[in-house]
């Protein structure tokens, strides 16, 4: 992800300059702005409009600090003090930190009576026309206006006049609602839409005491990245139609995960409470998605709790579906599978499997007859948008290919014809609906003597399945994925597996044990370890070593 601006990460070869921050001299890359300088020494300069990935406009005035420059003598040489650092001439009025780029000998005061007073003043101005409807505002709990009020504002207000009235509950896009009275006119959303997504539809109209954030008449904020404006909105002016009024944010548990909507693998936080996922938000990873994610990925989780979710292991008996405990269904399936010769069995793997699942599936295939069992996955082609979306909509095509389970869809037709001709009589399908996603006629599936599927949602394939093994969604499992750039990243478990469904690796492990005996693997860590030992690409790695930001695999091993 290329950002138009990276104020927080100057090029590595930027020369260093000496700058005094709150009395202490240190070195920083030249040209860094004062907000970032302070951040690097653990000081926080509050700000609303400044964002490290957007252009700097300096309109919120919250980052006012004191700035000084070296005192110069008659020959324009800095006057050195007893500490061998230049003496400082302080500018007698505050300056905004975001638009102050440091140079040699500069000095900053991020804490001083003047700075405190400035922050109080700015807070008072910002709150004058703010509706203060925090109890019903979705931003409450993650609102900068709230946070800075507590930290830098005053409890009381001197304002006794009428507040300005502006449009509220405005439908400005498919996913976004705007409350103009809450807006503090920081313009982050305007700049994000224009600079990062090149969709310049937002702007300020009626500039003055009625400044109004508006979408151009007849246009909509409908781009696929619109919900990032909700993330960067420091207040509750822009809210997500999908998330608003669903859950107070302070109740959400945030689990570090990865988006499975395409092969980019944007780093995410899964916001859940008890056993329900309420939202996905992007998590910073400069090597992948920076601070952003697309709306499609962000909103693509509702199926976890949808009406089509399969939560019971089922066996078909005639026209009936019989709930069959895991301890029985796995041996039953293994017994049925053993009725067939390797050439009579085929497996449809999935680009949605984790590496661990793919490894175990390969073990299952080994127990069924190895490569004689035709195996492929269903490719999902999308359109790359040049921002974050990948043309590959499977989150782990690379990983599944690494275990020899993918022929990029080239064997699908062979498998289908094999079924039509009666050569292939048993099919194990993982996380795919062959009717919808591979375009197979339903009649093909009717020809099978055994159809077993391990998946999440009801589909034409599950309708015809003899065995339904309900698996786990991305929010319910741990495991690793390889994105389209060859980066190994981790899913973490946010909620329990729904109903009687079971984590996919456990299903595969049990099936493998039922077919070919156990192998002493009991935890996902052990599965990863066994997988790493058998796979050169993962040599020396463990699930914990992948870390929250993932690891770039060596290109030679990553591109299969």
């Amino acid at each position, binding site marked *: 992800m290329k950002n138009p601006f990276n104020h927080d990460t100057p090029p590595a070869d930027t020369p260093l300059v000496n700058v005094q921050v709150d009395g202490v001299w240190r070195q920083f890359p030249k040209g860094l702005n004062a907000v970032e300088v302070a951040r690097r020494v653990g000081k926080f300069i509050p700000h609303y409009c400044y964002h490290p990935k957007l252009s700097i406009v300096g309109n919120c005035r919250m980052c006012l600090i004191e700035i000084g420059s070296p005192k110069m003598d008659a020959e324009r040489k800095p006057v050195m003090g007893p500490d061998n650092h230049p003496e400082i001439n302080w500018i007698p009025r505050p300056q905004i930190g975001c638009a102050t780029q440091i140079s040699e000998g500069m000095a900053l005061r991020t804490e001083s009576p003047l700075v405190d007073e400035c922050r109080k003043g700015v807070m008072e101005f910002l709150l004058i026309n703010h509706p203060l409807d925090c109890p019903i505002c979705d931003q409450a709990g993650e609102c900068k206006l709230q946070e800075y009020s507590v930290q830098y504002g005053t409890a009381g207000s001197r304002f006794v006049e009428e507040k300005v009235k502006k*449009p*509220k*509950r*405005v*439908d*400005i896009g498919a996913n976004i*609602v*705007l409350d*103009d009275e809450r807006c503090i006119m920081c313009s982050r959303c305007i700049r994000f839409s224009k600079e990062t997504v090149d969709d*310049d*539809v*937002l*702007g*300020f*109209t*009626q*500039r*003055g005491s009625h400044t*109004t954030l*508006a*979408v*151009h*008449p*007849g*246009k*909509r904020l409908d781009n696929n990245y619109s919900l990032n404006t909700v993330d960067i909105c420091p207040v509750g002016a822009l809210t997500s*139609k*999908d*998330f*608003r*009024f*669903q859950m107070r944010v302070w109740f959400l548990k945030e689990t570090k995960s990865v988006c499975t909507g395409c092969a980019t693998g944007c780093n995410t936080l899964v916001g859940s409470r*008890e*056993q*329900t996922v309420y939202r996905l938000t992007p998590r910073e990873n400069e090597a992948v998605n920076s601070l952003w994610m697309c709306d499609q990925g962000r909103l693509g989780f*509702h199926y976890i*709790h949808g009406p089509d979710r399969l*939560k019971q292991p089922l066996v078909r008996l005639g026209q009936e579906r019989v709930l069959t405990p895991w301890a029985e269904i796995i041996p039953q399936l293994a017994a049925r599978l053993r009725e067939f010769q390797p050439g009579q069995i085929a497996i449809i793997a999935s680009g949605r499997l984790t590496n661990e699942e793919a490894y175990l599936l390969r073990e299952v295939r080994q127990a069924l007859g190895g490569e004689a069992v035709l195996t492929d996955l269903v490719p999902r082609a999308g359109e790359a948008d040049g921002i974050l979306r990948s043309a590959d909509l499977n989150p782990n095509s690379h990983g599944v290919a690494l275990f020899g389970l993918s022929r990029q869809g080239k064997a699908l037709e062979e498998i289908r014809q094999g079924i039509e001709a009666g050569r292939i009589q048993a099919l194990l399908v993982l996380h795919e609906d062959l009717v919808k996603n591979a375009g197979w006629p339903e009649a093909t599936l009717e020809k099978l003597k055994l159809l077993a599927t391990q998946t999440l949602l009801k589909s034409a394939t599950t309708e015809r399945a003899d065995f339904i093994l309900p698996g786990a969604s991305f929010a319910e499992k741990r495991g690793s994925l390889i994105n389209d750039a060859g980066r190994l990243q981790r899913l973490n478990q946010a909620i329990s597996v*729904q*109903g009687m469904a079971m984590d996919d690796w456990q299903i595969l492990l049990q099936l493998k044990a039922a077919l070919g005996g156990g192998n002493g693997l009991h935890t996902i860590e052990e599965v990863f370890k066994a997988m790493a030992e058998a796979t050169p690409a993962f040599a020396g790695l463990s699930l914990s070593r992948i870390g929250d930001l993932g690891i770039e695999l060596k290109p030679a091993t990553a591109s299969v």
Partner: protein
Amino acid sequence: MSAPNTVVPPPAPEISAAAAFPEGAQGHHELPAFPSGFDAQADELVTHYPVSKRSASLPLLHLWQETFGYISPAGIEWIAGKLELQPINILELVTFYPMFREHPIGRIQIKVCRTLSCALAGSYALCDHFQKKCGTAEPDAHGIATSPDKKYSVEFVECIASCGTAPVIMIDDDFHENVTTARADELLAKYTA
């Protein structure tokens, strides 16, 4: 035990963007017929700003308003297209500057100064007189009173820099000093003729 898991649909937003931001949403969306040379005149104005075309926004808005009387949504889009900008960039300017109008006003535009000297010299009474004579309706949100036949519009303006000869007015682009009610009637007759 499984969680209820029903995702309650969020309440539908109550206001569409068009209703919330009426400015610019009304008016003509079709381009008017351009007088000959209009396009060339616009292109010539753009050449005054070789560094950034965007700087030609205000000159083009003035040209548009002088030519067509007000700035329609079609005008905003045309100017944005000419300068390779998005329409919102132009709408921001139109809604900021009080001199840009988004709605048509009267053909004869009477501007009465109400700053100190003129106010002391009776500009409020003068403005009332003009409004009565022209039969204008109540002033709109921007303070412009227009007659129903769209012949006249009367408005107050701030100082037009001739305090020594108060009260002063402008009719279209012409400046008139020491305007008494009698003089006002004369002027109206002259402009109406």
